[in-house]
């Protein structure tokens, strides 16, 4: 038995090394090279993906089984979608899938709660070698990686190019003077990054410092002032259904994520256009409007039987490799994190991918922190931003409100 295990370890390290070199050198068919060696990974694992993604993950799992014929994979849809991974897994970790999709901002809490396992050193190496630095940082929590990244998400600006030109959308002021942006100020995911544009940090520069939030400053007040200005701005429309407003022509631009891109193309037809966020005027200065950068990743459940752990890790690694990322991109338009895939002609020529990749650069976006306090953060940021927008928080209260906000999200326990 022990000998067998040694063989297994040896073969996987070998495999990882082979995969590493393969990915680095060639651009195609990287995964099939070492199929004979990997028979040692055995087990049965379950996999959760979003409902609508089940069909193409079936293909990916088939590919996986070509390489690992001894791993039985049970592919099902997750109960409430990957954006609710924390609650779905938290309900009963033992019943949750062995491998599941999770957005990176939930990783910290899941790691602390003990729901997920860190990546093995070999896996870390592979991931680091293949994926962009930001995405690697996105899945790293307290110096350990907790998930295999496969897609990056940042909201971009989608607009109707028959009404707005590419120059119009470069600054928020021209954009909203020439057209109407439909958006939702009650979603902090959309608008908290304005604070970051203004020059504040959320949980410090590294996003892991509990006391690192400095929104309780003049910069923070500037951000709140900007929200208040938008209420009077005729070119900004508060709506819970931006898509519909875009379609009906009441709005000419929206901010949205790549997950809606396919639908947007259908709605706008030939007039579809996409661009990175514009610049905005904050405290008298023109600054880049920022977005939250999210990394979608697959994590391995810590409740998985020890004997299946390796199979689970192998599965998570495989379904986030170059080949799988390309399938995911083709089928659902999610922007890959794999460096080679990003550079491939298909992705590089896609305007949506270009815009998202532009937004992923530093200065355009900030990684969503993975702090445990993020749960409180979302709850607290929503009424703050919305209150400033609607005017229910007066300018005189800004400092006090920001102070309570920062204190609330900086509590250790």
């Amino acid at each position, binding site marked *: 038995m022990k000998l067998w295990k040694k063989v297994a370890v040896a073969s996987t390290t070998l495999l990882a090394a082979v995969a590493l070199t393969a990915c680095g050198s060639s651009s195609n068919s990287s995964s099939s090279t070492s199929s004979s060696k990997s028979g040692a990974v055995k087990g049965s694992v379950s996999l959760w993906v979003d409902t609508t993604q089940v069909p193409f993950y079936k293909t990916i799992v088939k590919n996986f089984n070509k390489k690992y014929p001894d791993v039985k994979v049970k592919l099902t849809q997750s109960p409430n979608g990957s954006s609710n991974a924390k609650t779905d897994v938290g309900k009963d970790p033992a019943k949750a899938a062995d491998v599941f999709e999770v957005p990176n901002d939930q990783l910290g809490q899941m790691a602390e*709660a*003990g729901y997920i396992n860190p990546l093995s050193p070999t896996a870390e190496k592979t991931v680091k070698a293949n994926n962009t630095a930001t995405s690697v940082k996105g899945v790293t929590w307290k110096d350990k990686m907790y998930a295999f990244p496969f897609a990056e998400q940042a909201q971009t600006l989608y607009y109707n190019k028959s009404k707005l030109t590419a120059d119009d959308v470069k600054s928020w002021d021209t954009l909203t003077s020439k057209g109407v942006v439909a958006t939702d*100020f009650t979603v902090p995911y959309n608008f908290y990054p304005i604070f970051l544009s203004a020059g504040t940090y959320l949980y410090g520069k590294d996003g892991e410092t509990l006391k690192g939030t400095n929104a309780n400053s003049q910069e923070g007040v500037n951000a709140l002032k900007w929200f208040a200005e938008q209420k009077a701005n005729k070119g900004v429309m508060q709506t819970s259904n931006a898509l519909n407003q875009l379609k009906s022509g009441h709005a000419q631009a929206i901010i949205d994520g790549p997950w809606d891109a396919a639908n947007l193309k259908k709605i706008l037809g030939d007039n579809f256009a996409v661009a990175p966020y514009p610049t905005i005027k904050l405290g008298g200065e023109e600054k880049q409007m920022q977005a939250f950068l999210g990394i979608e990743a697959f994590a391995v459940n810590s409740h998985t039987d020890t004997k299946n752990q390796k199979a689970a890790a192998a599965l998570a690694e495989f379904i986030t490799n170059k080949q799988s990322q390309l399938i995911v991109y083709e089928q659902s338009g999610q922007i890959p994190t794999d460096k080679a895939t990003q550079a491939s002609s298909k992705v590089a020529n896609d305007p949506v991918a270009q815009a998202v990749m532009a937004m992923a650069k530093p200065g355009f976006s900030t990684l969503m922190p993975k702090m445990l306090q993020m*749960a409180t953060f979302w709850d607290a940021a929503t009424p703050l931003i919305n209150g400033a927008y609607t005017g229910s*928080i007066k300018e005189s209260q800004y400092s006090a409100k920001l102070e309570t906000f920062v204190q609330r999200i900086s509590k250790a326990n």
Partner: protein
Amino acid sequence: MFKRKDKKPPKATYREVWAKGGLASKLSFFLMGVSSLKNRQWVRGIAYLAVEIGFIVWLAFTGVSALSLLTTLGAIKKKQVVFDKAEGVYITKLPDNSVTILLFGVLAVLLIVAMVFLYVTNLRATKSLYIANRDGEHVESNMEQLKSLFDTRLHTTLMTIPIIGILAFTVLPTLYMISMAFTNYDAKHSIGFSWTGFQAFGNVLTGDLAGTFFPVLGWTLVWAVCATATTFFFGVLLAMLIESKGIKFKGVWRTIFVIVYAVPQFVSLLMMAQFLDLQGPLNNILLNWGWIAHPINFIGASASPLVARITVIVVNMWIGIPVSMLISTAIIQNLPQDQIEAAKIDGANALQVFRSITFPQILFVMAPSLIQQFIGNINNFNVIFLLTGGQPMNNNYVGAGDTDLLVTWLYNLVFGQTQRYNASAVLGILIFILSAVFSLFAYRRTNAFKEG
């Protein structure tokens, strides 16, 4: 009326049974059912004995450990991440799962209570057997006992299965919930948690949740009063309108209104939320007709709290009036007409008749169901959850919005971002206390709980 014939045997104390009873009686104090067996009541005797043996076996194998674990909710509270060199992967050594420990601990306590209950019935049976033997009375035979299950003991037959169902699916979960309120079960202690006494109560009543709890409690009460009163009052009016003289096709009219109630709420309310949206059909219609210059934000996340609260009450009328209309219709049809006739002869107009005769009578008949509706509205999850989801946002609240009721806030605390299970258990208990206080005096008056 069903009283047993008055031939109650002379009493005997358990002391007497113990002192003077035979070996079987004595043994029955330890081995349930022995005296039944001795008296050839085989079924009962074997059942008792089997239950006891089963209980002892359970106690020995899992019961004791379940109970002892209950005191600490598991020894290991912290997880540990270790590197498994052989497999080349990290393994997490998980804390003891307090959720299941607590659940099975509560179950064990419940089983012990049930056992004590059975033991008492066993003693009682032993005593009556002792008395029957002592006084030379007829001892029930095996067959007689079985037959009595369909006659004098019919209640046992009818109630056993339902009671087991209630114990398993209502009592056990409720006890579990109550005990959760005394732990630190939250997002930070989601697998291994421990007893913390009244700390969670402190959080809700004086701690960080107090600023949310009291305003939400206030709105919950306002909502319950308004929702109950509006649906009742307008339901009665609608019923009288349909029942009034000269209106034809009363059944059709009633059905039109009932349709609204009949459509499943998760359909009608979810759609209603869209209907009332800032850019929804209602605003579009009103704008097109020129009735309003700007769209009204009825229930959106940035709506004005007052508008949103009025809107949910109005929408609740839309859902609730048909039901109370149906009930009032039935009552109106059965109202004694003589008083009304007499009043009319005396020259009272319709309004006076309504105010002094019809309405008080309806109110009198409907009082008990109104109280039930009030309690129901305190816990009216669907209307708020599906319609507004608690919005609009309130920047002074923690995890709740302006239209959130205690019960939807409770739901948010469990299934929302923050997962504060213990706090929500506290809320559950407080909601219970609230309902209990309100119905304490009320239910005593209702017929259903009076001695028939």
